[in-house]
């Protein structure tokens, strides 16, 4: 079973919400649509669900026209950012709702509902009213309702975004287990997220979206190791990959009058010229023999410190694996790990990466 989108476009006003979107998805796989806010993720999911009619393009599921099927007849299930349930129904009735629409036998409904509730850890909650549940439990009900349909396509639109940190971590783990279980093997799971860490953790394929376009599709490893352009490099990293302009001359990288770097092995064959260089925060560390940068901001996150530093026009974020305090304006010495250097051309397309270099 495969879901194919060809040239999907949607422009309700002056801006493209979907711009020539093409992809092919197969059953039993998890696809994460990763992009910033307003990238077009929700619009794409709503288009797949049938809640939005695209201006142009086609959608096919197993060579059948999927796009012309009205929303209530499509074989899709959807979990939203908000905890969307039926407030007037109990947990059991909520989960049973899609099956009742199909006029299934009550014993079949019961068996499937109980199985779905067990999957999401809500067995014993059948008779509770939705309002009596916590946010995490409400989202589990929504998830159970999407699973019980055994739909061909399951859409999850940032389902964890409105949960607190702890619950998000817990549910993310549970989601992964549920999606990799037998119950989901016949479905195409499409998960949208703004969080690159979440996308990487879910595994499967990642589709990176920006301004209504799909910039790159590949496994999480492929996208992480070889982002095909600067936007993908930024979207797939948290904090975003540092980008700075420089020149390659005489086998060296010249970033400023004071900062020159040796060309790493994977960039040895770079031609002389201007490039955009990229480096993840982890590649920028403090070293007494490094280049002078002044501190703009230091952020402590758990057991790590994000250091926002600047040297002339070069503003970067470094990641220190300990909690350290810095004063704004303080000068620190910084080293670039060139083995982790990405190189993009002036059109912002990838030229060389540590995993796919030009030797």
């Amino acid at each position, binding site marked *: 079973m495969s879901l194919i989108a060809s040239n999907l476009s949607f422009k309700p006003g002056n801006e493209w919400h979907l711009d020539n979107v093409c992809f092919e998805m197969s059953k039993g796989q998890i696809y994460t649509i990763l992009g910033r806010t307003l990238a077009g993720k929700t619009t794409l999911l709503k288009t797949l669900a049938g*809640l939005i009619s695209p201006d142009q393009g086609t959608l096919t599921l197993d060579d059948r026209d999927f796009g012309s099927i009205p929303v*209530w007849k499509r074989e899709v299930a959807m979990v*939203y950012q908000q905890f*969307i*349930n039926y407030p007037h*129904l109990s947990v059991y009735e909520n989960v049973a*709702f899609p099956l009742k629409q199909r006029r299934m036998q009550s014993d079949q409904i019961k068996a499937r509902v109980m199985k779905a509730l067990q999957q999401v850890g809500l067995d014993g909650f059948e008779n509770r009213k939705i309002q009596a549940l916590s946010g995490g439990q409400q989202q589990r009900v*929504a998830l159970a309702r999407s699973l019980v*349909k055994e739909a061909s396509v399951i859409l999850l639109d940032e389902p964890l975004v409105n949960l607190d940190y702890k619950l998000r971590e817990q549910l993310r783990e549970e989601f992964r287990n549920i999606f990799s279980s037998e119950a989901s093997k016949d479905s195409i799971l499409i998960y949208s997220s703004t969080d690159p860490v979440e996308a990487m953790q879910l595994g499967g394929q990642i589709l990176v979206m920006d301004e209504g376009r799909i910039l790159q599709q590949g496994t999480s490893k492929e996208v992480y190791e070889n982002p095909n352009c600067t936007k993908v490099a930024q979207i797939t990293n948290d904090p975003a990959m540092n980008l700075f302009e420089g020149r390659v001359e005489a086998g060296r990288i010249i970033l400023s009058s004071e900062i020159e770097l040796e060309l790493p092995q994977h960039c040895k064959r770079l031609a002389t010229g201007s490039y955009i260089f990229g480096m993840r925060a982890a590649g920028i560390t403090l070293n007494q023999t490094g280049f002078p940068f002044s501190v703009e901001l230091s952020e402590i996150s758990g057991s790590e410190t994000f250091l926002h530093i600047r040297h002339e026009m070069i503003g970067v974020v470094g990641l220190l694996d300990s909690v350290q305090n810095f004063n704004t304006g303080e000068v620190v010495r910084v080293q670039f790990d060139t083995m982790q250097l990405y190189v993009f051309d002036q059109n912002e397309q990838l030229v060389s990466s540590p995993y796919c270099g030009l030797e």
Partner: protein
Amino acid sequence: MNFKHKYLFLLPGLLVLLAILIFPIGFTVRLSLSSWDSFYPALDFIGIENYVRLFTDDARFWEAFGRLSLLSVTTVFLQYVIGFGLALIVWKEIAFQRFFRVLFLIPMMTTPVIMTVIWRTFFHESLGPVNDILSHFNLAPLWLSSETLSKFTVMIVEVWQWTPFMFLLLLAGLLSLPKEPFLAASIDGAGPIRTFVYVTFPLMAPISIGAIIIRLIEASKIMDTVYVLTSGGPGTATETSSFYIFIKGLREFQFGYSAALSLTYLIIMIISFTIIAKILVKLMVRGN
């Protein structure tokens, strides 16, 4: 200041309450135990004589009460169904939505008595435009002088006059509903009719109950429409409880007896509405 003096602050409100609610009720109770009429205008004490007369010797009141129940339940039901239908139409994005919203409210903005006079002219059996049109089909219904049809005519006027009120309450209710369950229902495979049955109607149940009770209370006081349209006639065919109480009190000046009628009517209404509200809650909310 003595702590007990705080109760003095309650006094203004208490006095107003006494003046506008407790005193009139108290006086009506006392009046109902008297034989005060136009021949003997005095607050004498005759015990429960008026009540005995009402329960043993006044079939006309109970017939009027039965008629009132029929009229109010039927008209409120029709107002609810039509009002809900109209509210559903303009709830969705349709062309000239604002125009229709105002249009549907026009009957409510008119003066009921004047509109009833117009309706009476409209249904006039020899001069009215309705029978003028129907005469082309050799029909001449007795809108105001037939025992059965006159009730129907009162219902038409009541439904026309008060459906917009129901429409307004239900539209406000629809507009306040969360959008998310509708989104979920469409994804879960519910078409428009099933979405209405399983989502819209249940979510609207609390608002519907409120709207129905408000209208039932109003409809149970029906007086002006009957007075202007048929004067309770032909005979007593359209006479309702409130109109009968009006006749006893302000035409026959049997103040003591009409006070007993009013109190009995009030108690029956309170009990009826409590039962109706419980039934509606059971049917519309718990039934979901």
